[in-house]
């Protein structure tokens, strides 16, 4: 079994494509579309990588940051990546404070995302 990734995004077609792309690269991908579901995955398994969109379905508009804190508390060894269409200096700082290893701007192509994630995985 290859490295495990938790992918959290509320756009189903995006997670469908991303999962399929990474599964062909021998990664195990779990997909969550909202915060509580993602937390349940974190409680149930260990991940090398957690890739999360800043905005998930919810009132906050920044549920992704909440999940970053949650992951850092429970799985400090997991590398976290935050994705967002709007990467302001504030978002970047907030994400880094919560342990994000990378903050990437959407849209990002699958090959570019793949390259960024590969750099974070243990060789």
């Amino acid at each position, binding site marked *: 079994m290859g490295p495990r990734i938790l992918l959290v995004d509320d*756009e189903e*077609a995006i997670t469908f*494509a991303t999962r*399929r*792309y990474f599964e*062909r690269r021998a990664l195990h991908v779990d997909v969550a579309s909202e915060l509580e579901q993602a937390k349940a995955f974190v409680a149930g398994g260990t991940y090398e990588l957690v890739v999360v969109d800043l905005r998930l379905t919810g009132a906050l508009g920044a549920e992704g940051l909440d999940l970053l804190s949650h992951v850092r508390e429970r799985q400090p060894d997991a590398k976290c990546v935050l994705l967002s269409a709007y990467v*302001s*200096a504030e978002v970047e700082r907030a994400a880094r404070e919560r342990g994000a290893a990378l903050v990437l701007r*959407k849209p990002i192509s*699958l090959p570019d995302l793949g390259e960024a994630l590969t750099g974070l995985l243990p060789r």
Partner: protein
Amino acid sequence: MILHATEAAIAGALLQELPAGVVVLDGSGQVRYANRSAAEIMGHTRAECLGLGVERLFGAEAAAEILREHAPGERRLTTRLPLRGEDAPPAGLSIVTPAHGQLADVLGARPVAVIFREIEEQRLVEEDLRRLEGQAALGRIVAGLAHELRNPLAAIQGLSFVMMDECAESDPAFEPARRIAELVERMTRLVGACVAVGNPAPPRTESCPVDGLVEQAIESLSPRWGHRGQAPSVTAEDGGLSVEADPSQAIQCLRALVDNALDAAGDPARVSVRIRRSDRRLARAQPAVRVEVRDDGPGIPGSLLSRVFEPFFTTKPDRNGLGLAVAQAFALRNRGTLEVRSAPGDTVFALSLPVVAGRR
């Protein structure tokens, strides 16, 4: 007859005192009369004005508008025509073609009278802001729509990558998938630009050294000038200037100007960037730094010059017409201005941004 002479004297005296410039041209475009205000605005004496060609006096763009086909008795109003001279403020012109009659008797066929005033900088800024506000409501709808399109576009692009990933390049499905990815890439850029024009993010201003902004904008285009002659040359007439601006928006704005200049420039491309303190002030009398991006291309016809900042206006088949619109939106949001003047072989886009007091 006596009455006529009196009338003429009164009219002549009043014309001299009018706060607006009045110039009368004969049918060949030579200046036959200029009042005191006209001479002052144009920086000549009245005697110097007489006999000048309309183009020498007003510059090519205004001249083209003045000499445009006109019917006797017609009155046209133009706004914001740049006048001759590098720092001459734009002017609003009222162009009057007198009906056949007295003037034609004296000046020959087709005389034209031009009445004009300088538009103060403050009014220009207000005009820009009003236009911006007018666009804002529509802009928010467009930006909202664009935002909603982002996710589906990202998904389509992802799916096309998956298709390319899962078949060999020789597979009949590969090329269609590649083309879908390419088209989506184009749409994504368009959507990003629509958001930028319609609802630009509020600028996060800081003190930025201008030469650094210019350098980064040029650097980001290096693949372009790489095969089109030399890199744009940069001259800083006043060194060490910093502006108060959002660095990422300022770089995008400058990048659009240099990109546009490279499109227009001759072959090999000669594009230059000049940085200096501006002689003119921005809103609230704020001193400014002026960055001029100049190209040696064929120039923009006068009739098109006022439209270059309109969203989706382009003369190039492979461009979406949003580059300069985005550049102007960013300039205005950063409390600056973006202006253009153009003559064959010499087109200049000038970005002015608030200067940071003192040297860095």
